[in-house]
């Protein structure tokens, strides 16, 4: 590296870690919906339960497949036996819901009182006959979306290591399918196989809504790449086969533990690519996967250009505007990179945790994007301090602050536009198809402003902000 390049490099900082985010047990909310035959048991206190109940909003009333194992004073002081207590609750869950897997979510409390969940699970599993997966998704160690990472890392160990011999069984299933489809399916299958290039099996990891799974799978299919499986699958019983030497690729930036587990424990090869968020990210993601399999990507130029053309009405609203990420869900770097490509300036990327190895390709793309767009390199602030950030926001006056709900209304009242960051984790933002949805969210406060701009109601607090 030459001296001249030094100031060009990304600037990483670390603050006090005094920031607002969701507790990682919130991953239960989307994972129980994704994995249809699962049951999530959060072993914690009223505090955890209260958070989930409020964070999940209306979902809580729909008989969710999750519950709290609420610890009482007797559990803390070890007057009650953990194993017996858990057995009683798990048997009740088995009786009432009959799930294919029970996921235990360890919390801060089980960490502090050192409940040996990993030790108890195999014993109880063999006694009650339901797989028990342990994920220690607690607020002592992790933030928000990292909860999914701990669950998927634990699931990775449960993926079958050999394709079931059942070639015949598969044919049989096909036979039934054929019957149901009056033989139509047969052509599809034969045709399907020939559309793919012969490559080492590829498994993708990261929980996404089913429509997005379909979209990304079809996107790779256009390049002749077959997705052999997806971690997690729709059902626990359908977890993908992971043999030594398989390729794996992540779809979300917060999955570093899962990636590590897949490499070290399952001996898979990780394709380190930028994440398929925004048309630029999706293209880079596909190109990287193609390059690993020695495939020359087809039609990506046109496809990306076409998507950008379709986004122009939104892009012109944000071009030249500035954005500040307070940081709470680890999607920040990918989002910032996409928005810089849209012509925005990024003041700061706050992020709870930065895995420079797992995000290496994404960080490289961020740097490259900044250079190409002639945009200053943003500072990346790990473990931010929300109080300090607010001072910087007042000084910088960004056009948009992407932040948690704790700060959103107070900032709006002070005339600063905000977008609530949690929406990005629940909205569909991956792939070419959903780039528009992401910009729909980003531009919403600006479009709202266009509607209200002549009213003179920007600042709605009496005295100047104290905090």
């Amino acid at each position: 590296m030459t001296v001249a390049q030094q100031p060009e490099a990304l600037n990483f900082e670390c603050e006090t870690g005094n920031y607002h985010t969701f507790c990682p047990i919130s991953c239960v909310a989307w994972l129980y919906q994704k994995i249809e035959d699962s049951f999530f048991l959060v072993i914690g206190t009223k505090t955890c339960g209260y958070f989930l109940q409020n964070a999940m909003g209306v979902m809580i009333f729909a008989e969710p497949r999750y519950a709290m194992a609420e610890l009482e004073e007797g559990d803390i002081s070890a007057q009650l036996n953990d194993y017996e207590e858990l057995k009683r609750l798990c048997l009740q869950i088995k009786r009432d819901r009959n799930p294919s897997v029970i996921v235990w979510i360890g919390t801060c409390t089980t960490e502090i009182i050192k409940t040996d969940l990993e030790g108890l699970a195999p014993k109880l599993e063999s006694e009650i006959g339901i797989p028990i997966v342990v994920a220690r998704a607690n607020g002592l160690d992790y933030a928000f979306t990292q909860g999914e990472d701990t669950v998927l890392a634990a699931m990775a160990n449960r993926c079958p290591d050999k394709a079931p011999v059942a070639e015949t069984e598969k044919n049989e299933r096909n036979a039934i399918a054929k019957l149901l489809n009056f033989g139509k399916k047969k052509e599809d299958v034969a045709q399907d196989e020939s559309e793919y290039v012969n490559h080492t099996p590829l498994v993708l990891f990261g929980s996404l809504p089913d429509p997005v799974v379909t979209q990304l799978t079809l996107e790779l299919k256009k390049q002749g790449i077959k997705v052999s499986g997806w971690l997690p699958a729709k059902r626990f019983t359908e977890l993908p086969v992971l043999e030594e030497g398989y390729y794996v690729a992540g779809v979300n930036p917060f999955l570093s533990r899962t990636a590590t587990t897949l490499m070290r424990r399952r001996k898979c090869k990780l394709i380190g690519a930028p994440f398929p968020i925004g048309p630029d990210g999706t293209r880079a993601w596909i190109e990287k996967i193609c390059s690993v399999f020695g495939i020359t990507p087809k039609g990506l130029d046109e496809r990306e250009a076409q998507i950008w053309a379709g986004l122009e009405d939104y892009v012109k609203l944000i071009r030249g505007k500035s954005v500040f990420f307070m940081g709470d869900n680890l999607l920040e770097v990918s989002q910032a990179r996409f928005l810089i490509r849209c012509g925005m300036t990024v003041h700061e990327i706050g992020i709870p945790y930065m895995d420079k190895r797992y995000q290496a390709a994404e960080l490289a793309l961020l740097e490259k994007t900044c250079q190409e767009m002639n945009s200053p390199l943003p500072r990346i602030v790990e473990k931010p301090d929300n109080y300090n950030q607010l001072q910087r926001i007042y000084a910088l006056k960004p056009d948009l602050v992407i932040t948690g709900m704790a700060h959103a209304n107070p900032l709006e009242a002070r005339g600063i536009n905000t977008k609530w960051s949690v929406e990005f984790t629940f909205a569909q933002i991956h792939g070419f198809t959903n780039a528009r949805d992401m910009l729909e969210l980003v531009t919403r406060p600006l479009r709202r402003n266009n509607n209200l701009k002549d009213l003179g109601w920007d600042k709605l607090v009496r005295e100047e902000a104290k905090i």
Partner: protein
Amino acid sequence: MKLAYWMYAGPAHIGTLRIATSFKNVHAIMHAPIGDDYFNVMRSMLSRERDFTPVTTSVVDRNVLARGSQEKVVDNIIRKDAEEHPDLIVLTPTCTSSILQEDLHNFVERSQLEAKGDVMLADVNHYRYNELQAADRTLDQIVQYYIEKARRRGELPEGKTEKPSVNIIGTTTLGFHNNHDCTELKRLMADLGIEINTLIPEGASVNDLKKMPKAWFNLVPYRELGLTTARYLEEQFGTPYVDITPMGVVETARCIRKIQQVINAQGAEVDYENFINEQTLYVSQAAWFSRSIDCQNLTGKKAVVFGDNTHAAAITKILAREMGIHVVWAGTYCKYDADWFREQVSEYCDEVLISEDHGEIGDAIARVEPSAIFGTQMERHVGKRLDIPCGVIAAPIHVQNFPIGYKPFMGYEGTNQITDLIYNSFTLGMEDHLLEIFGGHDTKEVITRGISADSDLNWTKDGQAELNKIPGFVRGKVKRNTEKFARDRGFKEINAEVLYAAKESVGA
């Protein structure tokens, strides 16, 4: 261990935070792991706060587990003191700090040496108290702290105010319709010629607390919050308190008569009977409603009631005593104060139900099949499932229970609001029932389901499957747009790829 899907009252620290953030210029510092500051989100979202919620966390992470908090808590207190100059910082323990058993008292004492404001440790044990009990205790603790402080400095005022005056104790942030109740109570006091001495904790400054002994009496409108404080003030200064919730016509009158008795005993010589009569007969519409044929039609209809002590008891009495409705059972989740509830409602309902288990409540509703439910958000959803209308009368509540419009539950305007709530719940159910009998408004299907017969396009199985994943309310539009897209480009078949291509091209 207890299998729990839903809880009615939150954990203890929520109660403490509700008190701390209700005061002006008081800051709470939670000793908690990342993510436990969810209170800020709730306050900012539910009550649509314009200001930052004055709560920060002194984060408990791995390092704290290994070495203890050491200087961290003290540093955080001193830093906040310097940044925002609060009058008081309340160090708030959580379930995590309850088991870590760090000497938080010591941290408070050490930081007090440097901090300009006051510092205090909220004395609540997570495993012994719930949100409501903790709020009651914390309020008492803060009041005692400032009374004692004033006493030490000789700053306690002598004697009472010249005119009859009151401390209204117990309206807080995130309390069910508390801000509207507060306005209504102030109006009622003004009508009665009573001055407001202090109003705590919502909107009060801790520096005003030393004024509390000057009031002639204390009014505690909510059963759950403020009684401990009122009892302390009675014991210290002999200040009597009125703890009758002025909710419903009869109870409001009872509360006013009690106030009359209490201040006349101190030489006020007031007579509120005319006022009560005038309000009851002509200002509040509730008494007239009881006579009207609308209410007559409700006679003997079955209802169930569930909520916190204050609201469930008051609504039960209103239904039974003021409207002639048959309350099959009334229940509360305030188990720790169940005797009071039983005593209040026993003569007004067939059965009393004390439980924190929403499953048990749901079953009890299904069993009696009432015409209307009055409960929390949870009972509203049970009602949805069973097709029974529900009026929400108590926390836990959602953002729609923080209305911007003026909707008190207390005082004479409160009786009007409650009448609407009750009557609308019952008629809504009756209308639905009638509609069903006559076969509904409109029997035609609005959106064609599946593949329409005249379509020349064929949806493949995967295309249809993807279409089905699209939420119902936009599916018709997506289907039409996709078919138009396919027709324009001459596709014969619509599969998932075509569907998404259409989405990309037209934003369908």
